[in-house]
């Protein structure tokens, strides 16, 4: 292979270079200029994100271990975009004195997990997949424990690393069985050899539970809430949006390509998981007061909806999922952005603390409301379209009852989103969060989110583009 082919993995390479550049910058920056790394990184990463959007070739590398297609490139771009927003939102937090000596670490760790995710998306065999998975997980544990003098943060870190170790152990066990049954670790080989037999089923279940851990499907979700609550907000938003989104992408890709021959086997299972995930997520979200924990459970419920897309037939399901995740990125980051802004300014992160927010900070209140409505799937915001297409996909496979359950669950979810909105708009507070002005980076991030939330739904071209490249990908 010649060097020119490396253009195929430009996302990964760019990210690696970016990470190394930050490392170098860290070394050559004096103690008191550390915070300039933030600006440097933001510009650098914006550049990286932008370059990612430049259309390029697609194809396979390393004997099929690395696969690149329009769809995977799009997925990577979505993730890049999300990480860019996360970085912008993290700016204010990183400038705080207690983080002064770990700025570049935050960026490098995040970027390395992103590299892992990119490799996972492009993986053509289970080895790359697995290493990508671990690369995408292990550093996050470090990030989760970033506020290391807060016991909650430490707890989040240890819970994440141990649960993920267990889950990856179980996933590996499943992979070993699949290897034993099919004789290969390459996706393309496995896809032709899988048959519905007990060993494969067993291996597959173990695999799914490992992935379920990443997407936080019930009953593999328990870590989610604790980790989200304990981790710093900008890590939580990263976990909840980027990490989960990437996992959803990969899960879909693997199910749709590698295990497409045993689709009849996994559909009932996804069906059951979808119902459990939506319902349990909602039931837990209902009575939370900590906003991060609340969003954690809400994101679990959202994961349940993603499964509906997996049940959907072929390209429509794929499209719906990618589209939903795209919407979800903007929506959830909008919500997390508000949470982060408020937390940075006042330290409040409970729903009851949000009472009267609209009186003092109407724009943030409104933004939060719009984000939550989008999460609930209220038109004309993008969340509605995302959900609708997922349901359309599921209905396309004849799962009308599941769609009904899902929509009813969406109604329950509306209930608790409305609780937050109620706090923001309706309820009175003696001491509301004082008026404040968030940093420019945060503002840019929030404007991006809100623009995304409004544009994506109406601009049908996005959906159609995803659909066209999904079609190519699946054939």
């Amino acid at each position, binding site marked *: 292979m010649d060097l020119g082919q490396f253009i195929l993995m430009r996302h990964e390479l760019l990210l690696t270079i970016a990470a190394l550049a930050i490392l170098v910058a860290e070394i050559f920056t004096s103690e008191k200029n550390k915070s300039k790394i933030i600006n440097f990184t933001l510009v650098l990463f914006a550049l990286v994100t932008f370059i990612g959007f430049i259309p390029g070739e697609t194809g396979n590398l390393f004997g099929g271990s690395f696969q690149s297609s329009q769809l995977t490139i799009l997925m990577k771009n979505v993730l890049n975009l999300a990480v860019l927003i996360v970085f912008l939102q993290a700016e204010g937090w990183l400038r705080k004195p207690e983080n002064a000596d770990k700025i570049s670490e935050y960026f490098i760790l995040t970027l390395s997990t992103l590299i892992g995710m990119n490799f996972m998306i492009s993986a053509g065999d289970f080895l790359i997949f697995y*290493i990508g998975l671990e690369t995408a997980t292990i550093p996050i544990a470090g990030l989760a424990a970033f506020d290391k003098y807060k016991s909650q943060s430490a707890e989040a870190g240890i819970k994440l690393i*141990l649960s993920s170790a267990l889950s990856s152990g179980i996933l590996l066990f499943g992979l070993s069985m699949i290897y034993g049954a099919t004789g290969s670790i390459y996706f393309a080989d496995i896809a032709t050899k899988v048959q519905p037999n007990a060993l494969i089923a067993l291996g597959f279940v173990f695999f799914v539970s490992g992935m379920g851990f990443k997407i936080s499907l019930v009953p593999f979700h328990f870590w989610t809430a604790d980790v989200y609550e304990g981790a710093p907000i900008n890590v939580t938003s990263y976990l909840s949006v980027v990490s989960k989104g990437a996992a959803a992408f990969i899960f879909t890709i693997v199910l749709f390509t590698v295990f497409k021959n045993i689709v009849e086997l996994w559909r009932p299972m996804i069906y059951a998981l979808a119902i459990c995930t939506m319902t349990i997520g909602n039931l837990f979200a209902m009575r939370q007061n900590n906003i991060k924990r609340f969003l954690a459970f809400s994101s679990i419920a959202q994961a349940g909806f993603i499964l509906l897309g997996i049940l959907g037939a072929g390209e429509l399901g794929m499209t719906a999922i990618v589209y939903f995740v795209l919407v979800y990125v903007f929506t959830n980051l909008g919500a997390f952005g508000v949470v982060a802004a408020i937390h940075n300014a006042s330290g409040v992160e409970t729903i009851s603390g949000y009472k009267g927010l609209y009186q003092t900070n109407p724009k943030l209140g409104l933004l939060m409301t719009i984000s939550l409505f989008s999460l609930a799937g209220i038109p004309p915001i993008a969340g509605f379209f995302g959900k609708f297409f997922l349901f359309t996909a599921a209905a396309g496979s004849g799962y009308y009852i599941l769609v009904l359950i899902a929509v009813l669950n969406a109604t329950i979810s509306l209930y608790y989103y409305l609780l937050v909105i109620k706090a923001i708009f309706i309820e009175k507070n003696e001491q509301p969060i004082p008026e404040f002005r968030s940093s420019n980076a945060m503002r840019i991030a929030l404007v991006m989110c809100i623009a995304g939330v409004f544009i994506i739904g109406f601009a049908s071209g996005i959906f159609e583009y995803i659909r066209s490249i999904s079609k190519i990908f699946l054939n």
Partner: protein
Amino acid sequence: MIQGIPLEHFLIVSTIMFFIGVCGFIIRRNLITMLMAIELILNSVNINFVVFNRYLYPDQLQGQFFSLFVVGIAAAEASVAIALIINIYRNMKNIEVENVNEMKY
């Protein structure tokens, strides 16, 4: 059957080991011992890969390499986990897993 030992026996051993690891993860009171249980799990997975490679698909070394990387990752995982455990120790002055439940419900 290579050397007169059926494949299934290896698998049985690894399976039992796997579940001993799982069991250890669930019942142990100490974070480090839980980490050890993880190592048991990974180890059993490695046995699986290697044995499948040797018995069924010796034409390539996929299983073996897989185990190789698993070992590497296990090391990375262990190092981060231990750092986190020490962090916990600094925050809580012990590493009893039961005490790590500040966040719940």
